């Protein structure tokens, strides 16, 4: 039970991180980035290459991976978002799907079709707590996610950059009037989102094998998690992610492991059918 709960929370933390990355961008520019899962994959591959091929220390590899993904986030918004910023929502969404196709297949060319095993700092080691043995990596994932969530809270609430990004997300016009450089804030949002993805990637790598396809399902499920929580809400994304992770693990253990990946979407559709704005979303209002 405890083991299942911990691994569910760990997986849920990963979903939460990816969902956060989707939500911060959606709040800033009203676009769902379908390539967010591929960003996670990219982060994992970069860290794996640095460690396994270039033999860098693992923490250095993590740091470099996050920095490189930040750079990538900037390029991504410059190439795939900025030219489309005035286009309808669906145009941009399809463009991000194009980017995700590119990344997935480019990764297959660069790193080959074989999945790579990339151990974390603790390898396979288990921690024993009162008779239950728990995978150390799972604990690491939960702790780091928690730390990132706390960091994000303070970043947006207390720092000048965070507040400017927040203001941009709430009302671009008002932000412009207040002298905030809106396009720069949007760029920072994309950078931040990619860094979150990289963090999720390096944390996830020891649990999943690193492969070109690892991002596809992850991105969709994180998107589902953010919808379950109530799209656009930061606490909603976190709680939705954790909920989905725990649900999946328990459903796989007690109901059917074949349909493990389906539960997320069944729950999603049920929630949407009865609560069209998710568990924590705002009420719908029609303007006449």
């Amino acid at each position, binding site marked *: 039970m405890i083991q299942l709960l911990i691994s569910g929370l760990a997986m849920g933390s990963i979903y939460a991180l990816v969902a956060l990355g989707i939500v911060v961008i*959606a709040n800033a520019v009203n676009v*769902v980035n379908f390539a967010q899962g591929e960003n996670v994959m990219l982060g994992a591959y970069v860290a794996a290459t640095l460690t396994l091929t270039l033999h860098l220390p693992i923490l250095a590899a993590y740091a470099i991976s996050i920095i490189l993904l930040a750079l990538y986030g900037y390029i991504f918004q410059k*190439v*795939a978002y900025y*030219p*489309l910023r005035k*286009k*309808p*929502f*669906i*145009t*941009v*969404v*399809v*463009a991000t*799907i*194009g*980017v*995700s*196709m*590119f*990344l*997935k*297949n*480019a990764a*297959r*060319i660069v790193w080959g079709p074989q999945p790579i095993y990339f151990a974390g700092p603790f390898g396979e080691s288990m921690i024993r707590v009162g008779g239950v043995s728990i995978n150390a990596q799972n604990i690491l994932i939960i702790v780091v996610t928690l730390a990132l969530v706390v960091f994000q809270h303070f970043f947006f609430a207390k720092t000048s950059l965070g507040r400017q990004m927040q203001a941009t997300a709430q009302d671009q016009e008002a932000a412009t009037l207040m002298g905030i450089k809106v396009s720069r804030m949007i760029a920072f949002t994309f950078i931040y989102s990619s860094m979150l993805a990289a963090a999720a990637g390096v944390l996830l790598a020891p649990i999943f094998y690193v492969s070109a396809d690892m991002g596809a399902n992850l991105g*969709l499920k994180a*998107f*589902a998690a953010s*919808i379950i929580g109530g*799209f656009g809400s930061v606490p909603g994304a976190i709680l939705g992610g954790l909920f989905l992770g725990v649900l999946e693990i328990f459903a796989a253990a007690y109901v059917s492991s*074949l*349909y493990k*990946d*389906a539960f*997320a*979407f*069944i729950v*999603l*559709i049920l929630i*949407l*059918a009865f609560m*069209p*704005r*998710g568990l924590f979303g705002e009420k*719908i209002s*029609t303007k*006449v």
Partner: protein
Amino acid sequence: MNKKVLRYLVFILLAAVILSIPGVMPNNYYRGLANLSLIYVIVALGLNFIYGYTGYISFAQAAFFGIGAYTTALLGVDHHISFWLALPLSGIMASLFGVLIGIPSLKLTGHYLAMATIGFGIIVQMLMQNWTSFTHGATGVGNIPGISLGGFTISSASQYYYFLLFFVVLSILVTWSIEHSNLGRSFKAVREDEIAAATSGINLTFTKVFSFALSAFFAGIAGGLYASMSAYISPDTFSFDQSIVFFTMVLIGGAGTMLGPVIGAILLTFVPELLRFMKEYYMALFGIGIVLIMIFIPQGIVNVFAKDGQFAEWITAKRTARVESPQKDL
């Protein structure tokens, strides 16, 4: 030259080109590709109802296509039911699922609807993969019976081409008819302004669900044709990625136009194949291509020739003139 004569000449030329395709194609591989593109035209025309005309996103079109394919395949293989009965059942089965997904989607728009349709598509594909006793599982369904008509069995790729062409022409005619009817206008009214549509007496629930069902029906029929033509189907064909490809077909060709999905479906079937010589690079390039198209021609190829909407205006003007005097159409 008289404009009317010119139009007839263009029409005859176009018909000649379309009819000579199987002869022009270098080998059966390309003939098969041409056949596949015809099937995709039907799928894209269907998707155009819900997205192009009614304005609702659906990323589940591959699932409806798959439901149609599995209906024909399983009825044929497990129950020995003739293609001619199985095909309409495929359309009906898909549209029932269209109603099923249409109803919860009524209150949803934008991100929410996109995700609900994605979720539905993924669940359907998982059932195909894992419900082995019913769907034959991940290995797919083989030995699907072919199509025979009054003692004549369709066997070669060229024969299939003309057979499918008949269905494509039928689909285009039906699309045209619906577009120029009360029903078609109610779809477009919902797309343009739901509140004004409701005050005009349009039942929003019925219209949205019907549009979903119609989209699914086209996909289901296409699926039935696909299963019979290929004789073998497997779950991985009916993926989320395939739904995206269908959606891109409509977008690239021009959503909400009749010609757009046709052009989009043909292009997106052939272009990736032409890139295949680049081996593993082609899917990556395909992804870049989608981004470039969204940046440079997001309104779709059909609308590229429009200068401030003049081209579209000219076309609508002509169509409206036809509606005004429908008896001239005979």
